[in-house]
């Protein structure tokens, strides 16, 4: 698509794109290039020189037990976050959609947690489940359950998943509700006349018609749980216990800034970069097909 009308001039447009060009070049393309470049070297222990290792960093990473474990952790974590937050959101959206009056009020009540930063959500959930002062921990103790996410790997994972999914419900709810309200009433009423009950209608009509929204949310939520949950992990578990909650992004940070292993951290960045690109391509291909949501 092109505009028919164009203004003349050569220097003006260049001047107009210059600010964005400079900022993107300096703070985006140069660092991204550096990440790829650094991934091919190992710096010596004093940081004075770099030794070319080709794909050595990658080979080392893929052979590293902890890195492979981190892949698995990320997969489990992002699938759980996506399923939990989308599941709860869909449930609430279906309920709100059944109301003639008041769905707007519920929407207002449900959307604002979107504004709560993942790191703040982490602190809130940490407070509830704190091993010494947490309210939920205390009541679980009354029931005879000894909650300790500092030591128990499964509980640590459960806590970061719930804290990450919690803040994401609003977003998914909004899109699901919009998707549901876009389904023509007449289709659903026709099915009702034919005697289809709620669950049948949902399974055979509503859910299939909602699939563009669901698919879109699936991709967006996976990207969210890959990157934006760093704050949750850092505040609640710092990747522990025994790296049980070290997702890939957290490991880039831990190895690069805490461990100072720049070559490995850069190689991890490159691998992450490949994963995001893949996800983005999937997302764009899907939008290219002009599916409406």
């Amino acid at each position, binding site marked *: 698509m092109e505009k028919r009308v*164009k203004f003349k001039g050569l220097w003006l447009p260049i001047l107009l794109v210059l600010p964005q060009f400079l900022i993107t070049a300096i703070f985006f393309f140069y660092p991204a290039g550096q990440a790829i470049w650094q991934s091919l070297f190992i710096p010596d222990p004093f940081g004075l020189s770099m030794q070319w290792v080709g794909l050595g960093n990658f080979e080392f990473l893929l052979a590293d037990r902890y890195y492979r474990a981190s892949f698995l952790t990320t997969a489990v974590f992002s699938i759980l976050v996506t399923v939990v937050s989308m599941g709860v959101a869909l449930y609430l959206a279906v309920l709100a959609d059944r109301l003639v009056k008041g769905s707007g009020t519920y929407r207002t009540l449900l959307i604002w947690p979107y504004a709560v930063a993942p790191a703040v959500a982490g602190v809130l959930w940490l407070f509830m489940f704190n091993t010494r002062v947490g309210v939920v921990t205390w009541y679980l103790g009354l029931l005879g359950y000894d909650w300790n996410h500092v030591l128990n790997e499964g509980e640590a994972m459960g806590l970061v998943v719930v804290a990450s999914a919690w803040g994401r419900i609003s977003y998914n709810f909004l899109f699901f509700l919009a998707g549901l309200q876009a389904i023509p009433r007449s289709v659903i009423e026709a099915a009702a006349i034919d005697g289809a009950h709620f669950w049948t209608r949902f399974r055979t009509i509503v859910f299939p018609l909602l699939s563009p929204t669901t698919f879109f949310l699936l991709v967006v939520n996976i990207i969210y749980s890959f990157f934006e949950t760093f704050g949750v992990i850092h505040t609640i578990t710092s990747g522990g216990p025994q790296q049980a909650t070290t997702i890939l992004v957290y490991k880039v940070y831990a190895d690069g800034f805490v461990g100072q292993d720049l070559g490995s951290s850069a190689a991890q960045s490159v691998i992450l970069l490949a994963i995001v690109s893949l996800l983005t391509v999937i997302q764009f291909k899907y939008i290219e097909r002009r599916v409406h949501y």
Partner: protein
Amino acid sequence: MAQQNGMVERRGAGLWLTHVGLLVGIAFIFFPIWLAFVASTVEQQEIVRPPMPLLPGDQFFSNYARALTSGVNAPVSTMLLNSMIMAIGISLGKIAISLLSAFAIVYFRFPARRLFFWLIFLTLMLPVEVRIVPTYEVIANFGMLNSYQGLILPLIASATATFLFRQFFMTVPDELAEAARVDGAGPMRFFFDILLPMSRTNIAALFVILFIYGWNQYLWPLLITTDPEMNTIVMGIKQMFPSGDDTADWPVIMATSILAMVPPVLVVVGMQRLFIRGLVDSEK
């Protein structure tokens, strides 16, 4: 007529069940925030001897005053100011540079236009988390650690907004530009007098989304602000926890958490329509 509400909506007992279901969901979402609020209004003693009360206490003013004026490492009022500058800087900065370059891409022919467009497209893919180490080095080399420029610039180096404005400019009728040209208005006159006013809603919607994005940043401020005076509130909360076995100052930490939520929540609730629009726009 009994069927007034349509035949698939719930009535009677079913309607009540629907409300109950929604209220349970809302309770689940509110509970952590309610608890944080309660904790921010009681004394430390009431928290460290569990279970803590579930209704607010009478220490609201003293806890919030203590957080705002002294905090743990730095006064929370300082951190709020830093967050505000960072969030507004990111929103305005990104909107300004994106408007200009989208205008150039859509309304001019210049040599590297296509290349520039693809460079922009590439940036859509890479969140800052992926390139943290090299970006940190760039900022360190420029001497921008612990500075507002350092907090803002790397986060506006992406072209999501340019993409959005380009899409919008493409829908602006050609006749407008033509008329402007016939009337002898130069490109910048057209930009300021016609294009900019027309983009008002898009700009506002984008501002809401970017403000929340900027306010909620965590990893980046964590890396580059080592000076507590430069901490943003969202990353500063974690810094308030003592290392080792000391007991955290829970009332102040929870008051800070509540303060960290208030500005973005006000923005979302107060500008709900723009917020939803921005959300849908920026995901397209």
